[in-house]
Every structure is written in C-alpha cells, then in structure tokens.
C-alpha cells in the first residue's frame, strides 16, 4: 500500500524512509482503505495544475514522520514552484545558478531568510508548523515558490491535467481541502461523508496567472534636447 499520495506530474521531491512508511502503513491498514482522485479546474472548467489536495480523516490525522524536501534555484527560478511536505520536515534550498540568491519567507507558518549564497551551503530549514510558506528571492523579485506544510499524511499535488490521487485513505469520511497559490480567498473545504469515495470536480476562483519577470521600469523621462 502506498501511504503518501503523489502527483502524476513532476518528480516528487519528498523522500520518506521506507521503514517509517511501513510502520505507518501497518498502523492504518486495520481500517478499509480507499483511493480518492480529485479533479481541480478553474471557473471555466480548465484543469488547474499545482493545486494542493489534502484529506484529514474524521478522527484526526495520524502522526506524520518528518521527512526531507528540496527546492532548487536554477535559471533564476524556484523548482518546483509548489512543494508539499509533512509538518516537521526539513527542506534544502540548493542554488544551482552562478549568481547568488537570498531566499526568504515572511509567512506565519515559517519566517526565515538564507542570506546570499551559491551552491549548497545553506542549511536545511525546519518547517515545524502547518500552513503555507511563500518563498521569495530578495534579489530577483519575480522568483516565487510555495511550500505547503501538511498536518496530514494524505495529500497530493494536481498534475497539469488537474488531477491529484490520494491513496490509502482511511474509511470513515473526513475533510478534503484544496489550496492553490492563486486562489482567491481561503482554501476550499469539502466534507467527504463516510462510505463515499469520490468527489465531483472542484472549481476554484483564481487570480490571473501572469507574472512579470523583469520588465523595464516605465515612465522615465527621455533625454534629448530641451
């Protein structure tokens, strides 16, 4: 049984010790488990990628072993743009560019900054509170990424086709939450009744997708004669 759900899109960055997974699997396999596939769209019905889908069982989420994650900086971008880690995980931020970056977060879930560095000199950062952490680079304003620190081990990230599969969910119902970095308002929360193993497509209200990278400043007076 696969306890931790995965996206069907990008290569997962979270690595869990096999032993810990087995222990948790054994603990949870006493109840009849089921898989849940959630489709996420925008208001026009277009599939939405990089949406985080979580499931919290009715009786509360089991204790999650901490893990590790990684967001790299390459081509003056963060990759991946969205990373999900269980609470208590440590995340590394290797800089594979030839220019220095300065990673920071002002988010309530984790405030930190990693002053100018190149390579892998920055120590991993502990994410010990659940929530969304927005990352930026103090030098390159267009660089943005998000870390979703999950309080439940049941989560998934939607692929470019808008689908996330959560596997091995315990029976008895629970709450499904959907979050996206461009979501207008609070994360969408949906009740999954006991005995139910499917949800209709979830439509999100999103802000515009476009972000300027490094457009020149506008409005400067031209020189020339006066």
């Amino acid at each position, binding site marked *: 049984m696969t306890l931790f759900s995965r996206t069907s899109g990008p290569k997962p960055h979270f690595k869990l010790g096999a032993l810990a997974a087995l222990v948790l699997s054994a603990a949870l396999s006493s109840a009849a488990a089921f898989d849940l596939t959630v489709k996420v769209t925008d208001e026009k019905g277009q599939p939405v990628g990089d949406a985080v889908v979580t499931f919290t069982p009715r009786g509360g989420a089991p204790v999650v072993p901490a893990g590790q994650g990684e967001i790299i900086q390459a081509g003056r971008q963060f990759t991946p743009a969205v990373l999900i880690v269980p609470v208590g995980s440590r995340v590394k931020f290797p800089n594979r560019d*030839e*220019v*220095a970056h*300065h990673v*920071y977060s*002002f988010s309530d879930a984790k405030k930190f*900054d990693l*002053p*100018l560095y*190149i390579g892998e000199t920055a120590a991993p950062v502990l994410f010990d509170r659940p929530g969304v952490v927005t990352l*930026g680079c*103090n*030098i390159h*304003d*267009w660089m943005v990424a998000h870390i979703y620190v999950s309080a439940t081990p049941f989560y998934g990230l939607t692929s470019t086709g808008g689908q996330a599969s959560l596997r091995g969910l315990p029976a008895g119902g629970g709450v499904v939450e959907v979050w996206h970095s*461009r979501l207008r308002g609070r994360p969408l929360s949906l009740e999954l009744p006991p005995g139910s193993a499917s949800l209709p497509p979830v439509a999100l209200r999103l*802000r*515009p997708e*476009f*972000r*300027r*990278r*490094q*457009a*020149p400043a*506008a*409005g400067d*007076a*031209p*020189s*020339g*004669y*006066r």
Partner: protein
Amino acid sequence: MIVALAVSLAGGQVLGGEVPSFDVSSGFRYNSNLSNADQASDVEDDFFWRADAGATWSRQLDRDWRISGRLFAGTEIPFQYSAFTLARVGADARVTRKFGLGRTAPKATAGLAFERDFFEDEDMTKWLLQPSVRYQHPFSADWSLELLYRFDASFARSGLFDGTGNEGALTLRWDPEGRWSFFAGYRLRYGDVVSWATPPRPDLVSVASVVESGNTVFGRPLTAYRLQALTQTPLAGISFALTPDISLELSGEFQHTSRSAITYDAFLAHLGAKAAF
C-alpha cells in the same frame, strides 16, 4: 564613479556576480510643440521613431546594497525635421540600498549617467550629465510610490544648447499580478529650455541668456532663445505585458512651461515595446 564601478563589476564576474541583463525598446513618440513656441504660428510638431538598447551588469554586495552599471545606445529619427535626428551612447552607474527584505521593501538609488548625443544639427551635439537620487516606496506588492530628483547639465557645441536643470518627480505605480500595469505622476523641472519664435520678441530677449537669430532647424529662419523656465508635467501611462519579458507601453504627458508672462504647452505621447532578458 563609473570607472570604480566598472572595476568592481568586472571583479564581480570573477567572484560570482550577476550575469549581464539586456534591454531593448522601440517605438514612436509625438511632440505637439517641438519648437517650444508660445505663439501658434511658431509651433512645429513632429513624430519620431526611436530605438534604444542597453546592457546592465549588477552585483549584490550584501543583503541591502547593490551596484550596477549600464551601457546604452539609442537613436531618434524625426519624420519631418531632420536636424533633430539623434544618435546617443552613454553609461549609467547606480548604487541601490534596500531597506529590508522582499518585494515590498523600500529602495533608494543614487545614480550618475553620462551621455553623448550626436544630432544631425551639430550645434545641438552635446554631452549630458545626469546625477539622480530615486526613492521607491512600495505600499504593497501592487502599489508603489517613487520620488525622483535629477540634475541635468548639457555641454553642447553651441552655447544655445548648453544648460542645466533641476527636476523632481513623483510617480505612483500600480503593478498587479497580471498583464496590465499603470503609472501616473507629476514632474517639475526648473532649468534651461530653448524656444524658437518669429522676431521681434523683446519679451523673450529680456529673459533669454542666449539669442541666436536665423536658426533654420525648422526650415524657415526663426530666432532661438535659451531661457530658464519652470515646466510642470502631469503624466500617465499604461503597459501591457505580451510575455513575462516583453511589454507594450502607451504613455502621455502634458508639459506646461512658463517664465514671467511667457507660457507654452506641449503634449507628448509615446507608444512602444520594451523587452528585458
């Protein structure tokens, strides 16, 4: 300052400084009163095609301080009055201090720009020196206010086109996530201007520091006057990003210039494309 910065930036490349970034722009602009004339019969307008390109080298010194140097070149081709055909090259050095972390941290920048302007009318050809101080204060990720002070000094072949000016500007920018961004502002400049008029103009002669009769840049003999005047300019613009690196921009400004009882107005519009990569 520019030489010191160049040495520092060259060292920066070796020590892991930023890769250079490039910007290019091209477009059209219109000036409704190129002759800076206060009498309708002396007003001459023109359209220009312009193109500019630049390369910028930057180095982040620590969390708060950044230095950058830029080399640039450009041209302006008038549709009608060829004397104003311009080719320019220049260099710009800047030191930026950021007050805090992130996109919403205020920034202050001191800059010094040297520019050589080659006009088809060689009397206009000049060196231009522009030190400036700029303060950018974001109120949020979308809204920011910019204050600018700039001094300009021109050293031309002809004393008519020499001059200095002091300029202050306040610009409000709205740059929400999305393709559109907007700015509006107000600029105030006190300094030398050149105004063309049909003689006799004793009122202009009484305030002019240089008078040149028989100037033919507009195809007919006019008298050119260099005088100090106050120019007030409300301006606004809108920009649409085609890609994350390329944007179209439309802007306009209304210049009202006055000295004693002499006043003239000009409307300037610009439509162009900019790219940075």
